[in-house]
């Protein structure tokens, strides 16, 4: 069953919005919001927390979060890393134009791009280029090598244009 935005209940939306709008939380705070104990605690804590919540108003929250995880609204959880302080901090955007836009070329390009670990994101775009890639490396020389060794030789690539990021102001 596909849950489009219309099929999300008001309470589901409220929890999703709350999760979306909160800035980085501690594991404890995040766990509170989704009704789980934070990972460092053991299996015993899981039972304790769930039993604490059973029969309370929090049980509904916990069940809601479980359901949203199962139906894919909540895809998972991740750490928010400080931008500009971790070593893998060089971001470059690469605009890619393909030689052809038929299904076969698109498919080959897509599969190959997904296999490049340093490519964090890839969107098909409207405009002068067909794709925008977001690439994360440690340094510019490392990016430069990746560009020639792997990106420029992706299937179907006609030309690329690179935009180097100097600073990350905000990221998802």
């Amino acid at each position, binding site marked *: 069953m596909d*849950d*489009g*935005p219309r099929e*999300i209940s008001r309470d589901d939306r409220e929890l*999703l*919005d709350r*999760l*979306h*709008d*909160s*800035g*980085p*939380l*501690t*594991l404890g*705070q*995040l766990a509170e*919001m*989704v009704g789980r104990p934070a*990972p*460092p605690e053991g299996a015993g804590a899981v039972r304790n927390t769930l039993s604490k919540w059973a029969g309370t108003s929090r049980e509904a929250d916990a069940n809601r979060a479980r359901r949203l995880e199962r139906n*894919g*609204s*909540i*895809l*998972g*959880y*991740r*750490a*928010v*890393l*400080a931008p500009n*302080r*971790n*070593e*893998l901090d060089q*971001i470059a*955007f690469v605009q890619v134009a393909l030689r052809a836009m038929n299904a076969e070329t698109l498919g080959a390009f*897509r599969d190959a*791009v*997904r296999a490049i670990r340093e490519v*964090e*994101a*890839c*969107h*098909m*775009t*409207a*405009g002068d280029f067909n*794709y*925008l890639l977001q690439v994360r490396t440690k340094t510019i020389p490392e990016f430069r090598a990746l560009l020639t060794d792997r990106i420029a030789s992706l299937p179907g690539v006609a030309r690329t244009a690179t*935009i*180097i*990021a*100097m600073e*990350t*102001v*905000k*990221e*998802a």
Partner: protein
Amino acid sequence: MVAETDDLDRIDRRILDALRTDGRLSMAALADRVGLSKSPVTARVRRLEAAGFILGYRAVLDPVKLGAAQVAFVQVTLDDTTSEALETFNTAVRGTKEIEACHMIAGGFDYLLKIRTRDVGAYRKALGETISRLPHITHTSTFMAMETVKET
């Protein structure tokens, strides 16, 4: 162990890399991934949090389910790129919900923004009412994403 300076050793980097994709890995699973036992890994994570390398944790949500499936990239030019102007702009960007990402770039414009809205119509509205009103903006150029191939 993590030094007080910005030096990260190989193990810290492996920890950050793992947590970047799955923040709720149990310490046992993280220890497995990194090749250490649970206690030193837990200690390293606490240090990385305390030292501000890890700002916190968040849920990863399906944008389609959130009603924000339309991605647009906007190239933005400012009228002033002194530190004060940049700071004002950066602060406004951080407080704008539709802006999912923002990078200062080297090129023919100043910033690349990634915007999420429900659809193209909602983007058009956001452009006029929110994005173009960001401080110091003098020019915008939008290109729409038609499909997301990869997003980690």
